[in-house]
């Protein structure tokens, strides 16, 4: 076995890692306009593109008690027409600028997002401002969107992942607005044009809004442009809404959603956890990564690579603004629904009972810090990380210090986080599948409540 003269390549062992190179996140230019609009700019010049996101910190949660999903419907109709741009014009303008537009609302915010060619930066910003300030919310576009929404809901009600998520949120959040992930058809039918107009007027306002622009531009020129199109915008700040606290669930319960004819069982287990501002956030992130948050994690090795029960099981911590929750999901063949739950809880309990090994700890710390930092290498990654930081009002140096925060964590930190946030004794179990196939298995894990796919109790 000879190799070229000077280099002897050892083929049997993986090469060691070289010296690590520093990750440099783009510098941010921060400005708050006199109307309260917070502006964050980050230059990234690799590709001739820019991405802009305008966030309003009001989403479906603020209307959940009277019109679930109204923020989302408003967002859908916002993009259809403004005072100066007829419906077709907006879509043509987008294509002319090589751009894609999204208008969406989640639980906590509504957003106008645009990405297009840098050579059209000012046109792109103009369009965002026009939609934010001058949307005309036409009745006929609203009626069309409303009908599309109803059909979309009907499809969602046949989708196992949606049904599982809907039920878990109901169970975990009770009377809190986070319980509702989608409106009913009747609720959609009850929307009126004036409801959309009122939401738009009250919540699409500069005070408390965030404008993030990332890409190939000069910050100085961009700031001038932003001042020009958003500076004169004035509107009062919306009132904050106080919501009831989520219930504390005690004891495991099983929530079985019957989907006739299902050839697989969608398993979803979860419990309330924390938000990103909780001091435990990094600990939970690391514990999650070792438990089931990565390909190389205990649960994935167990139920996929050893037992072959499922294709893509994962666990995750889901932070919303006021509360967060932890969950684990797997789509498995019907015969092994109970066996899967057994392993999910076994691995949870193992995380709670014993410290992780030094190797697992080291590996998971590298994984999390590396994958977080990968975000710096793409426009979408930068937008994603920075929008989290500024929308959640995390410390300004959050992205720069993430790696060192993760690397400082110990096996004791992981154990403490698992004990506090992997609440295996009180976790709620959702199973979506054909009851004929899985009801017996479901009953092994606690009292079973059955639901139909329409969201009703059986």
């Amino acid at each position, binding site marked *: 076995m000879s190799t070229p003269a000077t280099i002897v*390549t050892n*083929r049997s062992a*993986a090469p060691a*890692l*070289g010296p*690590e190179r520093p990750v440099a996140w783009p510098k941010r230019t921060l400005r708050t306009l006199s109307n309260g609009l917070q502006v964050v700019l980050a230059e990234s010049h690799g590709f001739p593109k820019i991405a802009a996101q305008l966030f309003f910190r009001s989403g479906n949660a603020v209307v959940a008690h009277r019109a679930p999903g109204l923020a989302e419907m408003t967002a859908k109709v916002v993009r259809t027409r403004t005072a100066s741009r007829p419906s077709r014009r907006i879509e*043509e303008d987008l294509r002319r600028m090589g751009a894609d537009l999204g208008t969406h609302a989640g639980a906590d915010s509504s957003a106008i997002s645009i990405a297009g060619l840098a050579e059209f930066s000012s046109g792109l910003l103009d369009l965002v401002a026009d939609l934010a300030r001058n949307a005309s919310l036409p009745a006929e576009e609203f009626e069309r969107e409303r009908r599309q929404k109803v059909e979309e809901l009907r499809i969602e009600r046949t989708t196992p992942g949606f049904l599982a998520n809907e039920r878990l949120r109901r169970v975990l959040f009770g009377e809190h607005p986070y319980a509702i992930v989608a409106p009913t058809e009747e609720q959609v039918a009850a929307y009126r044009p004036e409801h959309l107009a009122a939401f738009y007027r009250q919540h699409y306002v500069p005070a408390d809004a965030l404008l993030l622009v990332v890409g190939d531009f000069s910050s100085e020129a961009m700031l001038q442009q932003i001042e020009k199109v958003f500076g004169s915008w004035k509107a009062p700040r919306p009132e904050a809404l106080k919501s009831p606290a989520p219930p504390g669930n005690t004891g495991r319960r099983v929530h079985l959603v019957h989907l006739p004819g299902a050839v697989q069982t969608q398993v979803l287990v979860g419990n309330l956890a924390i938000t990103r501002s909780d001091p435990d956030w990094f600990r939970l992130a690391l514990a999650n990564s070792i438990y089931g948050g990565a*390909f*190389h994690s205990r649960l994935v090795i167990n139920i996929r690579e050893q037992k072959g029960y499922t294709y893509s099981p994962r666990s995750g911590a889901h932070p919303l603004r006021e509360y967060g929750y932890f969950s684990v999901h797997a789509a498995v063949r019907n015969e092994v629904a109970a066996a899967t739950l057994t392993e999910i809880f076994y691995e949870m309990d193992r995380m709670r009972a014993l410290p992780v090994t030094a190797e697992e700890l080291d590996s998971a710390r590298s994984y999390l810090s590396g994958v977080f930092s990968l975000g710096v290498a793409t426009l979408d990654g930068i937008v994603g990380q920075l929008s989290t930081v500024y929308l959640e009002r995390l410390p300004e140096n959050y992205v720069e210090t993430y790696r060192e925060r993760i690397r400082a964590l110990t096996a004791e930190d992981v154990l403490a986080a698992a004990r506090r946030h992997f609440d295996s004794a009180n976790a709620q179990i959702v199973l979506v599948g054909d009851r004929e196939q899985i009801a017996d298995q479901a009953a092994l894990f606690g009292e079973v409540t059955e639901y139909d796919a329409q969201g009703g109790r059986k």
Partner: protein
Amino acid sequence: MENTETKVARLHIPVEHTTLANGLRVVVSPDRTAPFVTVGVYYQIGFRLEPRGRSGFAHLFEHMMFQGSENAGKMEHIRLINSSGGLLNGTTNYDITNYFEAVPSNALERVLWLEADRMRALKVDDENLRNQRDVVKEEVRVNVLNQPYGGFPWLDLPPIAFRNWPNAHNFYGDFTDLDAATLDDVGTFFRTYYAPNNAVLLILGDFETSEAFALAKRYFEDIPPHPLPPRADVAEPQQKEERRGEVEEKFGPLPAIAIGYTVPPRGTDDWYAAAILERVLHGGRAGRVYHRLVLDKQIAVEAEGSADIFDTNGPTQIVTRIFHKPEFSSDEAIAAFDEIIREVQEQGIPEDELDPVKVKFRADYYSMLEGGMGSYMPRFGLMHYLACFTLFDGDPHRVNTILEGFLAVTPKQVQAAARKYLVPQNRAIVVRRPVAMGAAR
């Protein structure tokens, strides 16, 4: 002397390539702006060429490539990449199977070692095969058998549109075929197709070009090449009639229609024109199909389309997907679609519609190169296109020139392509018919 005309940026990607003594092509593209590298190995074998009686095997085999090689046992590939701070995956396509990693640049050598190890010698057993067969079946259930519109239309169209088995079979695999696969099949497939001379290695990101070439040589050059089978004939017999079929939709409530037109041969003038024509029809709300069917006539609640222009090397289609309201018949939806096609054929596309389509085409091309697979696989698209241009066209530098071909397409060419290719005897239509709807059509 600022001239706005010249300010239109044209991207130039640095690309260098070489071929090692064993036939492995190596393409590198350095970019030192962030301390990461993306590495890919693309083998020129996809589900089109999997053995008869073994539908789904190319994909099952892709799973086996993560089950262990000579010096990195089961889970070692995954552990070594994740613990380096990186991500990995693999996908099976029509004509290629790829394996790729994005890692901090200090793990470059480790990634190359891993990819070389499994190119040199896969080491798997029956237990691994049984395990991954189970995993793949759950993958098929979660993506196809237990989802509304699962597999629509990528699994529905080929058996209706095509006649040659490589193009027309079930790419995810019939369960009986998956069950029939043996460890011998795994060994044979590996020896037949997973040769350095049937692959391209791509290295992108934070490194010096000379360093990347030296590492490629060190880890890969002594992997022995082997003779490749003659290129299989994937040509389709001349189609003479419109082809139609129906597939039962078990869960979803709406009828869904897929209309596929076979694309002209790769790299021809017609191919460029067809790609632009596809973007005239689709490409979001400004596209003619969405505009007519969803916004104007409101027959459909969703209407979009696409074509695998860049990453296929055999028969492929421009595919339109329409989800229509139950109060309209599928025939009415198809008639409305046909009206759009007829207008393009008869009246052509005005210049002031075509120009913005090309601007968007350029923007989408840049976006694809920049990201392409979520926000955490940097330059996935650049890697993917470089691989396809190398394997299919023999020239990775096309990544910097191919755009010009699309931007040069004229309204006349678009109209001619519509007349020549958007015709019944070049198309197939499949309808996903909800069982819940009964006789309602």
